[in-house]
C-alpha cells in the first residue's frame, strides 16, 4: 500500500446550522485513486471540497477538525490558499472550460502561478498537459479554436489538462463523467488509470461500476458520516457494514 498523502481527522463541516460532515477520519493514499460513493447529499462532495478549501468561498460554511497533506495542516489560516489549489486541482461534474482558446485554457493556470515565463516554455506545458490528458492528438492542429467548441468528453479532458498544467499533486474529481456518453466516460476512466501513476486522485461518483473500475480504495458516506472505507474489491464483493451492502446492492438510495 502507498503512503498516506491526505489525512482527515475528526473533520466536521457545517453549513450554517446544518452539519454536513460528522467526524470524518479518512486516509487517502498517494498515487492511488480513492472513490467516494453514497446517496446525494451524503457529504462526499463536501468532503473533497475541504481538500482544496473550496468551502472557504461559502460564507456560512464552517470547518473544524484537521486535514493534512503530507503531514501539514491545510486549514491553517496562514496557509496560502492559492498555492494549495495549485497543489490540489479539481475537475467538476460539468466540463467548464474558460470561454477562451484551447491554448489559453491550459496556459492560464501556469501564467498566474508564475510558471512558463517564455512562449516556448508555455508551449511545452500546453503540449505536455494535453498529452497527459490524452487530448493532444485530437486538438494539436486547432489550439487557437475555442475550448467550448469541443465535444463534452473533449471539454472534460481539456479541464483535466487545465488541472494538471500547474503540476499538482492531487486531483479532485467531482462526478467527472456524469455528463458524458459511454465512450467519453471510458476515455476519462482510462486517463484516470494513467494519471494515478503521477497524481493522488479522489473521485466522487454515483456509478458503482465506475468506482470498481477506477479506484483502489472506496469510502461510503451516508448522512454526513463515513460509514465504511476499504479496498475497493472488498467493499464491492463483501463489505463489512450492512448499510454499505444495502446501498451498493440497491436496497436503499
Amino acid at each position, binding site marked *: 500500500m502507498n503512503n498516506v498523502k491526505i489525512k482527515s481527522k475528526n473533520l466536521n463541516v457545517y453549513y450554517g446550522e446544518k452539519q454536513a460532515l460528522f467526524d470524518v477520519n479518512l486516509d487517502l493514499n498517494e498515487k492511488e485513486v480513492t472513490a467516494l460513493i453514497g446517496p446525494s447529499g451524503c457529504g462526499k462532495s463536501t468532503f473533497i471540497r475541504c481538500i482544496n478549501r473550496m468551502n472557504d468561498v461559502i460564507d456560512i460554511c464552517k470547518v473544524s477538525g484537521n486535514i493534512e497533506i503530507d503531514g501539514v495542516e491545510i486549514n491553517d489560516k496562514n496557509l496560502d490558499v492559492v498555492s494549495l489549489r495549485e497543489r490540489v486541482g479539481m475537475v467538476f461534474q460539468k466540463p467548464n472550460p474558460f470561454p477562451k482558446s484551447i491554448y489559453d485554457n491550459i496556459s492560464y493556470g501556469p501564467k498566474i502561478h508564475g510558471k512558463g515565463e517564455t512562449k516556448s516554455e508555455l508551449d511545452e506545458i500546453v503540449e505536455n498537459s494535453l498529452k497527459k490528458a490524452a487530448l493532444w492528438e485530437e486538438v494539436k492542429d486547432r489550439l487557437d479554436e475555442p475550448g467550448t467548441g469541443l465535444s463534452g468528453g473533449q471539454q472534460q479532458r481539456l479541464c483535466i489538462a487545465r488541472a494538471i498544467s500547474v503540476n499538482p499533486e492531487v486531483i479532485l474529481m467531482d462526478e467527472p463523467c456524469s455528463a458524458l456518453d459511454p465512450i467519453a466516460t471510458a476515455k476519462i476512466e482510462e486517463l484516470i488509470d494513467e494519471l494515478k501513476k503521477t497524481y493522488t486522485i479522489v473521485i466522487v461518483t454515483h456509478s*458503482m*461500476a465506475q468506482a470498481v473500475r477506477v479506484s483502489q480504495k472506496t469510502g461510503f458516506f451516508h448522512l454526513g458520516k463515513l460509514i465504511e472505507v476499504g479496498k475497493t474489491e472488498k467493499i*464491492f*464483493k*463483501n*463489505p463489512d457494514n450492512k448499510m*454499505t*451492502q*444495502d446501498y*451498493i*446492492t*440497491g*436496497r*436503499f*438510495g
Partner: protein
Amino acid sequence: MSNEHTVKSYEEELRYLIDSVIKMGSLTESQLVDSMDAVIKVDKDSIDKIIKSDDEINKFRSKIDTQIMTLLVKRAPMAIDLRETISSLKISQDLERIGDLSKSNAKKVKPLPLDLPEELLGNLKRLGELVIKQLNDVLDSYVNKNYDKAKEVWEKDEQVDDLTYIAMESVIDFLSKDKKNLDFSTHLIFATKNLERAGDHITNIAESICYLIKGEYLKGSRPKGKVIQQ
C-alpha cells in the same frame, strides 16, 4: 437478505434464480435416489425414466445460465447479490455433473445380473445413502443459508472417500473369486467411482455456499479419506 431491493423486479429476478437452483437441486436429488435404487434393486425398467430425467436437469441448467446472463447484464450485481449470482452459476454446474453421474450409473444397471449377492451391494448401498444425505444436507444449507451445515458437509466428504474405498474393495474381492464376474464387476467399480465423484461435486457446492454466505473461501484443504488408486 432482510431488506428488499428498491427495484422490485430486481428482487424478483434474484428470487427466481435462487428458486430455479433449489428446484434443480431437488430434481438432481430425486434422480440420484432413483439411480441408486435402480442399481441396488437391479431395476432395469427404471433406466429410461432416469435417463430422461437428466434432460430435465440439463434444461434447468440452460435456464439458470440465461437467468444469470440477464441478471449480470441488467443489474451488474454487487456484494451479496454478486455472490448469489456467481454461486448459482457454480452450484448449477455441479448439480448438472451430479445428474450426469446418476445417469451414467443408471446405464450401468443394464448389464448387471439380477441375482447379485447382497454382500456385494451392501457397501455400495451404504455409500449411496451417504452421498444422497450429503446432497440433501447441502441443498438444505443452501435454502437456509446455513454456513455451519455447509461446512459440515464439506468436512464429511472424508466419510464418502472411506466408504468408496470399502465398496471398491468388496467389488474387487468378488471379482477376484471368479473371472467370469469381470464384466459386470467393472460396471460396479465405475458406479462406485461415480458416487465418489458426486460426493466431490457436493463438496464444491458446499464451498460455493460458504463463499456466498461469508464472502470468503474455506481455508485449508478438505479432510480426505482413503484414496483409491486409479
